[in-house]
């Protein structure tokens, strides 16, 4: 890793990269490039809550730091591509590239949080009346929130970083199951093209019979986000199978 030729941005940055995975070096890099993350997040202003965009950008920065290999070129370029990619993915996943009325956004966020909190507290998935009494919303508003805010992602900085990188232990088992599924249909190509996170969710729900909230817990996103990703993945697979 520590070759003589280290084409990072400057010697100070290069020195930090050489000291990884030292947490202090990592933190120094985060501080150094945080303004870049904030700047890129501002470019998507108005398409989601600014605070969320900045969180997504910061997480993407951490991911970029952990994945960067000095012989890949300048870190600034690598980080920018990673951050913009994650911001776009966030907007796509949350579906908020299309403007949702603020009231619905708020209800969606409120319900999404309550789902995850109550799932933790009760040790099971809550009912709509339980969510209503937790949030002070009516049953109908909760339903509306479940539907509309589906993917609103209140991701914290504690969320696992880089959960979709590298080969995981389950991968071979996962691939075997997906191969079985591939035999049934002509969606093989589409399955291979799915992002790893979506493939994993599909696998856990349909081959491990894990509940959506258990998957949410495992992957580190909200239950409503899992729900949204599943719906989107199924509809993509269907489209590619030519079934409606």
């Amino acid at each position, binding site marked *: 890793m520590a070759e003589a030729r280290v084409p990072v941005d400057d010697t100070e940055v290069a020195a930090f990269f050489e000291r990884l995975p030292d947490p202090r070096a990592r933190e120094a890099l985060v501080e150094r490039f945080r303004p870049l993350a904030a700047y890129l997040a501002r470019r998507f202003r108005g398409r989601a809550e600014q605070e969320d965009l900045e969180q997504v950008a910061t997480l993407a920065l951490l991911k970029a730091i952990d994945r960067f290999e000095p012989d890949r070129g300048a870190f600034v370029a690598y980080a920018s591509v990673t951050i913009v990619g994650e911001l776009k993915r966030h907007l796509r996943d949350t579906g908020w590239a299309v403007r949702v009325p603020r009231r619905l956004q708020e209800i969606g966020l409120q319900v999404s949080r309550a789902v995850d909190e109550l799932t933790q507290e009760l040790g099971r*998935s809550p*009912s*709509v009346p339980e969510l209503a009494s937790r949030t002070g919303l009516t049953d109908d508003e909760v339903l509306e929130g*479940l539907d509309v805010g589906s993917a609103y992602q209140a991701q914290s900085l504690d969320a696992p970083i880089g959960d979709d990188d590298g080969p995981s232990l389950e991968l071979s088992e996962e691939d075997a199951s997906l191969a079985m599924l591939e035999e*049934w249909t002509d969606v093989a190509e589409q399955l291979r093209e799915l992002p790893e996170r979506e493939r994993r969710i599909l696998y856990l729900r*349909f081959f491990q019979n894990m509940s959506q909230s258990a998957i949410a817990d495992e992957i580190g996103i909200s239950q409503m986000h899992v729900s949204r990703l*599943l719906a989107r993945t199924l509809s993509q697979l269907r489209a590619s199978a030519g079934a*409606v």
Partner: protein
Amino acid sequence: MSAEVKVRVPASGEFLQVLRNVVAALAARAGCSVDVLADLRLAVDEAALRLLHDVPGAEGVVVEAERADDALALSVAVSGPADGWPGAELTSSMGWHIISSLVDGAEPTTTADGPAIAFRVPTGG
């Protein structure tokens, strides 16, 4: 089944949202958990699209729902000819695997309206 609730929408994708919402509201009232609600929405979609695909010329999609012990029994049907339903490949299809993973006791059936897929979801905590 003598349904407590029966909803019919035109056979087109844009009306499936209506169907999903009605079914989710019923399930919520029956006490289903959020996990069940989310799976149910996906299952209704999958079942309706599968039926529309397999029954060309279907005019409407009909959902019937009835409370049973600790469960909500549903059927998704399309109005159209039932000959050839269910096709031999139905239960080995990916769509079928998905439906049976999402809900309990999925089975192809025929209602007064036409070809249908019936299933149950658990109610109550």
